[in-house]
């Protein structure tokens, strides 16, 4: 008879082991799925995890691309993780990402085509401000009227998407674009572009910012009084109140910070890899970042690893699609399994398994 017994303290060893186990079991379950689809499971798993890193044909291109794909995920996830630790659930990073990109792009398009060193820094400020401002809506509604920030931030994503569509077909439409929706190509406007900093490295300002954010988040969470307050508010809200933590201030701070980082991610994306505002500019980074935050155990260093792993499954997943003919839905299932196994194994870090004889009742 199996019995679960709650540990007095979550097990540190299991905390490190569960992500590894989850990845291993995802490979097994994913392999079964791919075999059921009639594909060679070993080839598929190798294609997803090995080929983007080491295949002589692709790797020199794919490896830097990991940074391009992981950059925005890490930047957003770091901000979300701080809030999640405090029990403040910003589910609307996707919307903050869009608004940040729109504000940044608006600055670029307003200055087009004038040169000037100050344009890109202004865009960065505008991007952070846009994301912050969009996150302030659920923050203020929560602190003033006690609305649920999960619902408000999530629903604001759909509002942001409509604003994006209206901008791409209206105010921000490229006047030289023959009437097609979408803005000017910002990446081709030197004063506003966010280029690859070193050729074929994948590094752009967004990736740099993501790593800076990781370092700051680490210091904040582990060395700063605010980090202590965040932890306390998340684990023992009543105790936090007695310790003098103002919940409203924490809500505004956490939502604002995660919003600003999501806005920055949007800005760096629109001026770099995405090149322009288009109807379908947002591709789900804000939602995937939630998975990345949890996969990384809400720890800044864990988030870097989780972001890179997630990026690997995306890039390897694309390879598996066109090299082996796997449908994109199977890759999504595969990514979903990863989160599922991770959460399932969390039981082991919080509980101990006891083998006991069934006792007569």
């Amino acid at each position, binding site marked *: 008879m199996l019995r679960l017994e709650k540990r007095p303290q979550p097990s540190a060893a299991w905390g490190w082991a569960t992500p590894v186990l989850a990845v291993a079991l995802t490979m097994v379950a994913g392999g079964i799925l791919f075999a059921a689809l009639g594909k060679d499971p070993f080839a598929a798993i190798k294609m997803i995890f090995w080929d983007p890193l080491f295949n002589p*044909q*692709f790797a020199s*291109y*794919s490896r830097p*691309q990991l940074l*391009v*794909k992981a950059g925005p995920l890490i930047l957003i996830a770091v901000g979300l993780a701080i809030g999640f630790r405090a029990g403040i659930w910003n589910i609307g990073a996707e919307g903050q990402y869009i608004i940040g990109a729109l504000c940044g792009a608006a600055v670029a398009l307003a200055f087009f085509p004038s040169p000037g060193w100050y344009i890109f820094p202004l865009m960065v400020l505008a991007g952070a401000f846009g994301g912050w401002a969009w996150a302030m809506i659920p923050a203020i509604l929560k602190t003033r009227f006690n609305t649920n920030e999960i619902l408000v931030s999530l629903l604001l994503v759909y509002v942001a998407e*409509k604003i994006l*569509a*209206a901008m791409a*077909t*209206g105010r921000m439409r490229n*006047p*030289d*674009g*023959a*009437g*097609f*929706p*979408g803005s000017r*190509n910002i*990446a081709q406007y030197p004063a506003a572009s966010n280029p690859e900093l070193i050729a074929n490295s994948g590094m752009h300002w967004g990736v740099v910012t993501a790593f800076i954010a990781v370092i700051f988040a680490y210091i904040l969470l582990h060395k700063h009084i605010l980090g202590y307050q965040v932890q306390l508010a998340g684990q023992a809200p009543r105790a936090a109140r007695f310790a003098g933590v103002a919940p409203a201030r924490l809500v505004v701070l956490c939502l604002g910070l995660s919003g600003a980082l999501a806005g920055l991610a949007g800005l760096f*994306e629109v001026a770099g*890899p*995405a*090149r*322009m505002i*288009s*109807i*379908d*500019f947002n*591709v789900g980074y804000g939602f995937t970042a939630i998975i990345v935050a949890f996969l990384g155990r809400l720890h800044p260093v864990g988030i870097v690893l989780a972001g890179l792993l997630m990026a690997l499954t995306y*890039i390897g997943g*694309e*390879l598996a*699609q*066109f*090299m082996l*003919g796997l*449908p*994109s*839905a199977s890759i999504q299932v595969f990514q979903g399994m990863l989160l599922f196994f991770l959460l399932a194994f969390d039981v082991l870090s919080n509980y101990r398994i006891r083998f006991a004889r069934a006792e007569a009742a």
Partner: protein
Amino acid sequence: MPPAKAGFSNHAGNNLTKARINRETFMHRRHLLAASALTLGVAAAGAALADDPLQIGFIYIGPVGDHGWTFTHDKARLDVEEHFGDRVTTTYVENVAYGADAERVMTQMALSGVEMIFATSFGYGPDVNAVAQRFPDVAFEHATGYIQEAPNVSLYNARFYEGRAVIGHIAGKMTETNTIGYIASFPIPEVVMGINSAFLHAREVNPDVQFRVVWVYSWYDPAQEAAAAEALIEQGADILMQHTDSTAPVTVAQDRGIYAFGQASDMTSFAPESHLTAILDEWGPYYIERVQAKLDGEWEAGDVWHGIDDGMVGFAPFNDAIPEDVRAEAEDMIERISSGEYHPFTGPINRQDGTPWLEDGETAPDGDLLGMDFYVEGMTGSVPN
């Protein structure tokens, strides 16, 4: 010609000229490249050509099972496979977002040995051109785009407004409430052009007909499309048209006992009684033609806008509910458009505000259509911007 419109058509005109000039320089460069390739190693290339099948890659904006846009492109991919057999292999990636994702997928395809790539959504333009510049030997075919910054980027598009003219005629004849509901995606020239074409031909046979347009700001959103369909029916529409890709509107029409036209593929099975016909996207013939050219070593970048005549725009079987005389008129119109005898935008046509657009007997220049941002006279409501 009022200045506003002149500005628009000039833009389009400039783009077209620019594209043409570019293409001439490109052709020049192509010859140089070909010459140097010849000196480098004809034997090796010849052997490779004879043995290896041509690898063709497709990138799709949606899932292959959408029964709309992507579905029709994938159907054409299968046509290519069937037509060429062992001489080609095809591969595809679904749900590829514009920007970094598209650029990465196409780059990796090219690195894996794919020699021809069909990018099947207009938003891939900048990505296609960026990748094309890095892989000059790969042939790129870009659907509904307008950017040609590399010699190996070809553009193709379909004159869907020709199909809209025909369904406009049928709707004008068959409506009893004189109200047609139109589910539109985005206020862009392609969609505005479709509304105008359908409206003009409905009005031609029914002076009392009105169009009600709902903009859903999405290409594929079954829930919103269904909600829009319900709203239009509430406003009295007894026939629905859609410029979105899901089967939701025809399904609602079937449930509510009114008529509807499908989009992109034959949607009859989703609405057997209600589905009058659908405008079909027929990419197969063009894809086969282009792949053949690539196989023969004769592929060159082009820029085509094909219609009913070239087989790119087709029709699903007409429903028996369409009266015999209306069916004959519709078939006659298809015939006349196909033969070039009739252009769906033939003057006199005024803009919504009453200012003249086309003189009597004048047909719309392509540049005007590709930049169309206004309704024609008689339409109610306004194009959002």
